[in-house]
């Protein structure tokens, strides 16, 4: 609890410090500037040991007295001050709301502070990396997405919530996971499932109870909140994370997003990755090993194309992954998680997953 409060105060201080710095520079008659880490390939560092991509030390200064930078400088300060107001007033707002709130016409001109949300969105990322905060800490939110169940008790805005006592539902994951206080975490690992249908099945089978894990359904592409939750559970409670998706390019991609640092640089800068996450299934080999051939789907051209792209990603350049993806391309087949139902409705929760967990049959 203390840590969360401390983090929030930190962000306020950081914003204030940024303002003070600029004012100092103005008073000295210097060119006020904001230093922002560079987010292009030239500043991405690949750590061979941890196999992680991260931002290097290179920064660029965004100056006020510079015709090419000036507007963005102004926009960055506007976003920063907006975030400060949110924090001061203890409210949250979406990034789109922020855009509308900050959009104004500048004096003596037809020029606007922001013309489109596509201008304000990247400024948020600039600020995130410049003062090393997450946008959720700036009180900028997005919709809830993702669902979680397990033997965990949290405090969320003053309310105590027990993830094991939500009936058929689960706790709907907000974007402000950073403000959540963990009271009790009783689990041995985290299982992340791509599809809500998968979550439902496993939740009904009380999988999280039987296996003593935290069960998370991402509902497709994992939201920032979901990813942050996964990261916190892994980071703060040292829980291993296993990801389960369809056996296709999209599924593999979702896995890599959670694990991060591989597909594109945005994930390098969002710092809500869980590098230690592992892929539990559904692999292409599983289709054969678990006799699911009757439930396969033929790959379309776009699937093959996407698979070929995945082969080139740094993260998937491991031998096991290359084998899997090549197998998919070669056989031209893919499968959904639901394919496991072909072997029985409880096959996934009672046989497939437990076997995999026992064998430690994961892809990195």
């Amino acid at each position, binding site marked *: 609890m203390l840590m969360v409060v401390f983090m929030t105060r930190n962000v306020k201080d950081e914003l204030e410090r940024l*303002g003070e710095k600029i004012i100092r520079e103005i008073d000295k008659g*210097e060119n006020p500037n904001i230093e922002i880490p560079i*987010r*292009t390939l030239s500043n991405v560092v690949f750590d061979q040991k941890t196999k992680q991509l991260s931002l290097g030390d290179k920064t660029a200064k965004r*100056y006020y*007295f510079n*015709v090419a930078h000036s507007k963005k400088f102004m926009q960055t300060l506007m976003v920063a001050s907006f975030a400060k107001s949110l924090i001061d007033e203890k409210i949250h707002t979406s990034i789109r709301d922020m855009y509308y709130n900050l959009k104004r016409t*500048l004096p003596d001109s037809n020029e606007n502070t922001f013309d489109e949300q596509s201008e304000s969105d990247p400024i948020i990322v600039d600020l995130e990396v410049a003062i090393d905060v997450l946008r959720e800490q700036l009180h900028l939110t997005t919709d809830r997405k993702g669902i979680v169940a397990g033997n965990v008790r949290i405090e969320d805005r003053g309310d105590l919530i027990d993830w094991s006592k939500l009936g058929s539902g689960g706790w709907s994951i907000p974007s402000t996971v950073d403000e959540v206080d963990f009271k009790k975490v009783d689990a041995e690992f985290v299982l992340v499932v791509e599809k809500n249908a998968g979550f439902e099945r496993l939740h009904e089978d009380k999988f999280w109870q039987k296996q003593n894990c935290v069960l998370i359904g991402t509902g497709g592409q994992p939201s920032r909140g979901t990813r942050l939750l996964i990261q916190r559970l892994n980071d703060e409670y040292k829980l291993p994370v296993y990801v389960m998706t369809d056996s296709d390019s999209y599924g593999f991609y979702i896995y890599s997003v959670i694990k991060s640092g591989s597909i594109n640089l945005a994930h390098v800068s969002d710092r809500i990755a869980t590098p230690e996450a592992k892929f539990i299934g559904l692999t292409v080999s599983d289709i054969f090993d678990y006799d699911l051939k009757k439930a396969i789907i033929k790959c379309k051209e776009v699937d093959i194309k996407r698979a070929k792209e995945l082969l080139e990603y740094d993260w998937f350049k491991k031998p096991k992954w290359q084998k899997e993806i090549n197998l998919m391309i070669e056989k031209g087949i893919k499968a959904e998680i639901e394919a496991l139902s072909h072997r029985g409705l409880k096959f996934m929760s009672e046989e497939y997953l437990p076997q995999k967990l026992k064998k430690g049959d994961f892809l990195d």
Partner: protein
Amino acid sequence: MARKTAEEFAKEQKEISVSEFFEKNKHLLGFDNPTKSLLMAVKEAVDNSLDACEEAGIVPDIIVKIKNVKEDVYVVSVQDNGPGIVKDQIPRVFGKLLYGSKFHRLKQSRGQQGIGISSVTLYSQLTTGEPTRVWSKIESQKKTYYVELHLNTVKNEPDILKQEDIDKDILGDSGVKVDMTLHGRYRRIVEDYLKYTSVSNPFAKITYTDPNGVKTIFPRSHNELPKQPKQMKPHPYGVEFGTLQRMLNNTSSRTVHSFLTNEFSSVGNQSAKEICKVAKVDEGKKPSELDRAMIEGLMKAMQKVKIQRPPLDCLSPIGSAELEKSLKKEYQNAEFVTTINRDPEVYRGFPFMIEVGIVYGFQEEKKEENGKKKKKQEEDEDDRNGETIELIRFANRVPLLYQQSACSLTQAVKEVDWKRYNLDQKGSNLPSGPMKLTVHICSVWVPFVSESKEAVAAYPEIIKEAKLALQDAGRKLSIYLSGKRRAGEQKRRIQIFERYSGEVAHALSILTKRDAKPIEKKIRELVETKKHFKGEDEQEEEDSKQEAVQEEDEGEDKPKTGGKKEDKNKENKKK
């Protein structure tokens, strides 16, 4: 049908008088259409007035009035303060075609273009039946002489309808006034002609009243007449067979050698000997005794032998400073005016010279503080930047208003790469921009493409010189434009920094809990110092394209393969 015999044909042949011929071929005189015809009337009369004043050493004051007396019928009235014309001469000047002294001389003159004011008399009487009316006052006479005349087309002689001496003081000490009544159409081109004439003759004052009664004064910007061009003897390179033959027949020189040295420019003793040697003609021979073959041989030799260029002091250009002053007077709104003249050059034995003037940019007079109006001004400027420049051509100080595309001066403009001088130019067209470009060629003999004399012929020497002059002018323009751009950039820079200062100060006040006003004030003070800050020249920021701020659907949506899927994604996408 009976066949006619040669004799019968012979009986029908008769002499056609020159004026009868022109009666049926008005376009050859330049009277192509009603608009042009009206213009020709003004042109001939004004040219005459300018010539007369210049030759008499009088700074010209010309008054032009055009009245629309009936549908499509106009009275063109031109009055000058020249020396006037002697009584006897008037009828032939105005009523006989091809009468004049200019045709025989090799001297820079306006009159090359026109066939003379008599053509206007002819055209007037053909289209309206009205006579040309002339008033003339010479200094030595107390009274003004008035005459009304027609042109007799059969005899090519003037028919005087009325003449009298009048007491009324119309012309002051001396001068000529002519009124011509003709069929025509009035268009702006007449005023343009007078405007351009004023530009190329800065010492002339022209007062103009148009058919609506609107009076325009084109004042002089220079109080002195230009130095008079000298007459030149022909140069061997420019002589044609027929001319040479005529000269040989008319010369008073007794030998071919002395004929060559006397009657040609730049031919001295040695050159004359050389020519005769190459032509294999005895230099002591009598000129009139040369037969055709010898004359041809002589001609060829004259082209072959290396002869010094003709004297170049026979030209009388407008003058670089005078043209600049003249353009500035005429285009007072212009941002920038520059003129260039090149040294005289020679084409085919004829000296010529090119002068170029550039008038660039049009300043708005209003001072707008309101940002919106400023924006419109910028838009207007953008529009004008897209318009083709206005090209104004002159030959021997006479504006050329027609046949622009056939003219080699135009060709020279098109062949210059104006992009180097910061103008837009598509391919080899005229460049575009808010600019007027004057190109003037003066020569003892300006070569024209056709009898209408509106397009200069394409001699390589002329095009080369014109391009060099245009390039010189372009360079000057380019220097001005870079300076302007720099000044514009400085202005824009200040505008930008001031514009954002309010929001920056506001943001800082929220971040640091201080008052915004003093912060803004301090920022503006810094801007006003205009100093160059460290970090100001850092490059344009690289846009990090890999932004994934949208959390949902960072990749593509999984295509549906049946069953409910993540439709919720799409709903969530709207933030």
